[in-house]
């Protein structure tokens, strides 16, 4: 009874116990509620420690990690699923699954909310944050070192004149503009994102894309992407007919995530930009 009447005495004790437990015992049942934290988790911890990932990672996540993701349990972000998995750590994004996050906070399940980061410095910060939370600091540093090495190689490969490019997948609503990871990847690889520049008009319909005279059109592929009206526009005949325009495909899900592997996409793009046919003059 005295203990209950004086909870303040108890608090430091509890805190000590928790901290000690955290230091000794890294989380073993981790649930991720966000496509991008899925990717980080898959790279940082052994699969046995992952209780579930979002269902998106199986089909629209980083292509190299999809097979692994498909072998693990998946969730659709509902509070019930998360509670049933009895996690000792939940990774979530800052803007989605808000009801679930509110509930988890009330129940007292440890949760780490991850920023959606759009540049390399942000990726370093978030990777360190998550690596510390899951007790894999060394692995996190290794991923960052690998990323920095890839960025250094990308810098040496970068073409001298930036290539005019745009990310267009058939819908005017989802053209990645400025302050996106897409933009960061393009800039790093030696391209200039037309949609990040102040240009006349608004909304990128196909005609406006063409009139901006891109040399490269990056067409996003989503899972089953041809099963959609936007694929009509994305596969429009005019894209093959326009001289001097190259079309490359990229995974929208992978390029949207601020994780170290984004540097691999920048490197890949830098190589592709070097291989583009010279513009006819």
């Amino acid at each position, binding site marked *: 009874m005295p203990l209950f009447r004086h909870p303040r005495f108890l608090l430091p004790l509890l805190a000590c116990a928790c901290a000690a437990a955290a230091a000794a015992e890294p989380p073993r049942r981790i649930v991720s509620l966000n496509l991008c934290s899925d990717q980080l988790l898959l790279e940082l911890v052994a699969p046995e420690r992952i209780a579930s990932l979002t269902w998106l990672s199986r089909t629209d996540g980083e292509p190299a990690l999809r097979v692994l993701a498909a072998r693990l349990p998946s969730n659709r972000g509902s509070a019930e699923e998360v509670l049933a998995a009895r996690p000792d750590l939940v990774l979530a994004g800052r803007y989605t699954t808000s009801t679930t996050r509110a509930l988890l906070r009330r129940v007292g399940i440890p949760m780490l909310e991850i920023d959606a980061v759009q540049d390399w410095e942000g990726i370093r910060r978030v990777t360190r944050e998550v690596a510390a939370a899951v007790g894999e600091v060394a692995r996190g540093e290794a991923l960052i070192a690998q990323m920095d090495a890839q960025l250094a190689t990308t810098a040496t490969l970068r073409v001298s004149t930036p290539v005019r490019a745009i990310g267009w997948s058939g*819908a005017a609503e989802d053209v990645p503009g400025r302050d996106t990871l897409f933009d960061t990847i393009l800039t790093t690889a030696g391209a200039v994102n037309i949609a990040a520049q102040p240009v006349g008009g608004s909304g990128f319909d196909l005609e406006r894309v063409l009139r901006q005279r891109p040399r490269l059109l990056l067409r996003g592929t989503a899972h089953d992407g041809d*099963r959609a009206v936007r694929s009509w526009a994305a596969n429009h005949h005019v894209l093959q007919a*326009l001289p001097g325009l190259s079309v490359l495909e990229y995974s929208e899900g992978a390029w949207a995530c601020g994780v170290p592997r984004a540097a691999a996409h920048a490197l890949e793009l830098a190589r592709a930009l070097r291989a583009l046919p010279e513009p006819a003059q």
Partner: protein
Amino acid sequence: MKSITGLNAKLALLLVVLALLSLLPGRAGWLLPWNLQGNDAELARLIFWELRIPRLLLALLVGAALGLAGAVLQGLTRNPLAEPGLLGVSSGAAFGAVLAIYTGLGAAFALAIPLLGFTGALLGTMLTLALGAGGGVLSLILAGAAVSGLLLAGTALVLNLAPNPYAAYEISHWMMGSLADRGWAQLFLAAPFVFAGIGVLFTTGRALDALSLGEQQAASLGVDLARLRRQVVVGTALAVGGATAVTGTIGFIGLLAPHLVRAAVGHEPRRVLWPAALAGALLLLAADVATRLLPLAQELKLGVLTGLIGSPFFLWLVWRMKARSP
């Protein structure tokens, strides 16, 4: 007879002028053929030939199909409120097309999209006519609303179940309709169905005239009513089903077009058909040009514009009917 030819000629002339003007504006600015030289000429040629001309032809074809289908449906049901969007035809077509596209059938076999659009439109029309026939003007509209609601729910369900994360975003296209970024491929997909449907619908004129005197009078004049009903249902499903399968549902064109021309040509259904088709094409083209000229961040869906103009007109028709019947 003279006045109707004159009206048709005037509408056709207006249509040609608007069609030519419609080639000039785009959302990325005006494109004038005479100030393009050198490097830009090839780009301009492609924009005209691959984007603006197929879009124009699609607008004309779909508008004519909707206007004509509205006129014929109003003739068959003897109901001034009938039109494809309100009778479950368009939502049935959208449901069929969505089913074809998001199950992957359309990617393997492109013709599946208009074929299922036609089948869905057929289903929607038959359901509405079966449920609402014989119960007066408003019971048909109520049946149409119920059938449309059901088929719209089906469309939303298919889109929500689709594995593609962007499928849910495309719901606005199917509910509101759009001609943006369509090309020859979509035009060729829809055109055979729409032309076949328009052909069937034009053959119903004489029987519709007879029907306007009443069912018994029409039967005594030798009109096979069951056959007429079949013709209208199949013709509408072909025309509207084919059109909706590539543009999404576009409401109210079929309601507005016949009413706009009726003042000039009178109430005989047959005389309304040609002018209604022309007026439908004119209305849809004008709406599409407006979506390109309005300086909004995202292109407005066609159905938003036709709904903004069409719904008040629909309410006015209902109000006028209430005022007339005690």
